[in-house]
């Protein structure tokens, strides 16, 4: 005998993601999910964005990291609330982890919460964490074929920043290929070319991030 079920497998995560979103919306906080490989420059880009946004917004950071506290220390040095989410070997962050860790922040004193996801182009793409939007990073040394190899992460992100753009010539990196494939996977994706080292493109990225924050928290 057959029983019809029609039940979403990811519902356990989606329900919590929606709950996180609701709680953040009650406190008027915008959560930004930052995704990318290990070494793509997630921490440096977050630090650069914080430098440019901190006059306007009250910012906190959740550092997802498999082990260690190097990234959290870097953010802590900026004097902002930062909580380390030690996922102990996991490949991604789930909404449940964010829900638990939100209790460690005074949400009424925040406008923006950056989440640095686990360095990985596969698993984090599958899990919503209550984010307002997703920013994916791809650094030049990783190669210009990564959008084709890992399309889901780019299909689900609102913006793609090609980081370490100052290295483009050394790696013969075809940025047009990346942009074309990203837009094919996701016609709505915004594409930026940045370098956290020399500051190139960061003003444009900051302007876009700022616009998305304003739309979320209606400041």
């Amino acid at each position: 005998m057959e029983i019809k079920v029609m039940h979403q497998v990811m519902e356990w995560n989606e329900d919590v993601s929606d709950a996180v979103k609701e709680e953040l919306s009650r406190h008027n906080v915008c959560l930004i999910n930052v995704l990318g490989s290990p070494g793509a420059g997630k921490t440096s880009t977050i630090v650069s964005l914080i430098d440019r946004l901190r006059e306007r917004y009250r910012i906190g950071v959740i550092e997802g990291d498999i082990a260690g506290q190097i990234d959290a220390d870097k953010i802590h040095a900026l004097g902002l609330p930062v909580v380390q989410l030690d996922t102990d070997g996991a490949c991604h962050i789930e909404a449940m982890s964010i829900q638990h860790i939100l209790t460690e922040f005074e949400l009424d004193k925040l406008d923006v919460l950056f989440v640095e996801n686990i360095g990985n182009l596969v698993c984090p793409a599958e899990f919503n964490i209550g984010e307002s939007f997703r920013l994916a990073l791809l650094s030049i040394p990783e190669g210009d074929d990564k959008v084709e190899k890992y399309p889901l992460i780019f299909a689900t992100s609102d913006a793609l920043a090609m980081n370490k753009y100052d290295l483009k010539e050394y790696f013969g990196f075809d940025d047009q290929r990346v942009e074309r494939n990203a837009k094919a996977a996701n016609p709505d994706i915004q594409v930026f070319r940045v370098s956290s080292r020399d500051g190139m493109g960061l003003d444009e990225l900051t302007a876009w991030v700022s616009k998305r924050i304003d739309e979320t928290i209606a400041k």
Partner: protein
Amino acid sequence: MHELAITQSILDIAENAAREHGVKKVREVRIKIGDYSGVVPQCIQYYFDLISKGTVAEGAKLKMEKLPILMRCEECGWQGEVDKHHIECPACGGIRLRLLQGREFYVESLEVD
């Protein structure tokens, strides 16, 4: 390595449905999964065999049917299957494509006694 959490969810869904219908034994769990997903089906079956021991779904086979990625070209109106590693319109080469299918992931039905 997120297959374990996903497998737990599949088992929960199967157990709940079995309980609702007063079922004694689940023989097969039929799952539909869009081709965009990075989930490894063999991994899911392996975990399922381990965690379903002693439940109504012990020994059940997971039948995971892949749903191909379907897109519509906004340039020329073509509609059909697209390779996720080479996304473009095969008719006109355009890249303004809208996803019609490929992100699904659900338990469709159970075969039960």
